[in-house]
């Protein structure tokens, strides 16, 4: 199953290079499902999965197209591949398997009961609400931010651009603390909010602000990359043809950035669902009120309620896998587009 693409023919190629005079019939690998590779670019697009075992045929070396492949030492390539697989297995797969096994062993029924209880339900609803709000806000303001930062030129643009990356440098705890210092007791905005009776710290609004803070860069950056790649050609054409800026946005810009937007929103959803440190600090994880799925797991683990903790963790992991599949679909599409249009 493990077979480096270049392995079979490589040895043959290396032997050929050393022993055989040019022009003599040589053994070559002919990948049956694809046309003979003429360039590295062509090879790159050969189907990955189900390429099948190479068939060996005799082809005169003279008529063979120039071989543009990397003659990696077969053993070296296999060793690197094996090392990578073992590493990923140990670091990623084994822990995931442990979670699944332990969640099942701790009892799925128990976990469902814990989640169906009012506290569990409230935590799940809070998490889903946070994801929904993050998607809505980042879906709109993220596009606006990307357009302004990539397309507009105005004083202070670089400063705003630098602000976008700041949340990535923040530890979640620091994000929570920063919001707490604004809205908490004796916080900067506390005098403004107190008369209105709106509670932000240790309440749902504070968790919303934290979630928006930590998810802010994803859509702005992903959409921004696409905008940079695309250039302004299409938009200029639309404007020349008489489209209003609004029409240009809906008919040209938005469809063009769709894949960047999907990618950014997938990352946003994953982060909003999985955020822990920030919502823990700002929300206080009050059972039945400001608990989210993650802080619910944390509390359950602290109380040694293993079934609820592991079951909910497995549920979150499963939800993440679904998001991952979406991410993968977008990435595959992106790669296809990139391979299809060189440059």
């Amino acid at each position, binding site marked *: *199953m*493990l077979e*480096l693409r*270049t392995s079979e023919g490589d040895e043959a190629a290396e032997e050929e290079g050393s022993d055989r005079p040019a022009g003599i019939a040589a053994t070559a690998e002919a990948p049956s499902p694809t046309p003979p590779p003429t360039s*590295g670019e062509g090879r790159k697009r*050969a189907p990955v999965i189900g*390429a099948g075992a190479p068939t060996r045929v005799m082809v005169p070396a003279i008529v063979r197209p120039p*071989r*543009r*492949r*990397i*003659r990696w*030492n077969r053993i*070296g390539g296999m060793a*690197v*591949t094996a090392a990578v*697989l073992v*590493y*990923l297995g140990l*670091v*990623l797969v084994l*822990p995931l398997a442990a*979670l699944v096994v332990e969640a099942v062993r701790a009892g799925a029924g128990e976990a469902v009961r814990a989640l169906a209880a009012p506290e569990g339900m409230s935590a799940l609803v809070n998490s889903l609400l946070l994801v929904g709000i993050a998607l809505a806000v980042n879906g709109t*303001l993220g596009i*606006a931010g990307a*357009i302004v930062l990539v397309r*507009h*030129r105005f004083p*202070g643009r670089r400063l*705003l651009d630098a*602000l*976008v*990356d*700041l949340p990535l*440098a*923040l*530890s*979640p*705890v*620091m994000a929570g*603390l*920063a919001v*707490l210092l*604004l809205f908490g007791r004796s916080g900067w905005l506390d005098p403004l909010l107190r008369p209105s009776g709106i509670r932000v710290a240790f309440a749902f609004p504070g968790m919303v*602000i934290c979630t928006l803070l930590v998810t*802010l860069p994803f859509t702005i950056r992903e959409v921004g990359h696409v905008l940079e790649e695309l250039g*302004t050609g299409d*938009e200029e054409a639309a404007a020349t043809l008489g489209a209003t*800026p609004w029409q240009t946005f809906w008919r040209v810009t938005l469809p063009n950035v769709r894949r960047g937007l999907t990618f950014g929103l997938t990352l946003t959803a994953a982060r909003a669902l999985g955020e*822990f440190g920030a919502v823990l600090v700002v929300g206080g994880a009050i059972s039945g009120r400001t608990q989210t799925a*993650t802080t619910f*797991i944390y509390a359950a683990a602290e109380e040694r309620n293993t079934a609820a903790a*592991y079951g909910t963790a497995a549920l*979150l*992991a499963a939800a*993440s896998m679904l998001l*991952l599949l979406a*991410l*993968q679909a977008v990435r*595959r599409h992106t790669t296809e587009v990139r391979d299809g249009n060189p440059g």
Partner: protein
Amino acid sequence: MSARAVAAGGGSTALRGVVALHLGLLVALPLAALAWKGVSHGPAAFWGYVTQPAAVDALVRTLWTSALVAVVNGVMGTATAWVLVRGRFRGRGILSALVDLPFAIPTLVTGIMLVLLFGPQTALGGWAAAHGVPIAFAAPGIILALLFVTLPLVVRSVEPVLRELDPAEEEAAQTLGAGSLRTFTRVVLPPLLPAIIAGALQTFARAVAEFGSIVVVSGNVPFQTLTAPVQIFGQVESGAPEAAAAVSLVLLAVALALSFATRALRGRHA
């Protein structure tokens, strides 16, 4: 017609205002509050908070574990990218999806996974502890958690550069008699190096900030397994926001310096 002319319209100023307000309220204002809290009691107090023995100990632990993880990630991430781009075997798509897994899995869940695998009561963890190398609630657990959450960074940084590399150069090197190892170090590695370093710096920055997985897996014993973000969390919980803010500023400075370095590397070789 310039880009500016396309973008310019009646709503352009309003749009800029909305974006500036969004970033200002959501990012600049909270961070200003954090910075102010850290320094508002004067430089002596700031220095006192930052040089508390527990804070220094946690900071040192955070820095060395993160540096180690950045190096391991630099090597294994490059190898993984190479396998994804140049290797060809069934199931490579699954491998690629697997690499993205840490982007999706909540960090808290990562911590729980590691405790379930390496906790003192488990087969693996018990065996390791019996041989004098406890994993969960010790430094190895912290390192494993950081390796998990940062795994995609170097891979996804190196992969696109490797994909763009012309295989003809490698072929030429080998035709001229260079061995695989030599071809790799002389031909493949140099153009990849900026991407590898950028990915490793990103790993370091991400590792320094990590909280969710470590708070579960490390056991949070002061002077033994406490890392800086967890120590900040402890300070917040125990009602010392000034100390927490001061240490936060130090961490933030480290992360920002790294982020600028990463940016410079990416920009130069984009």
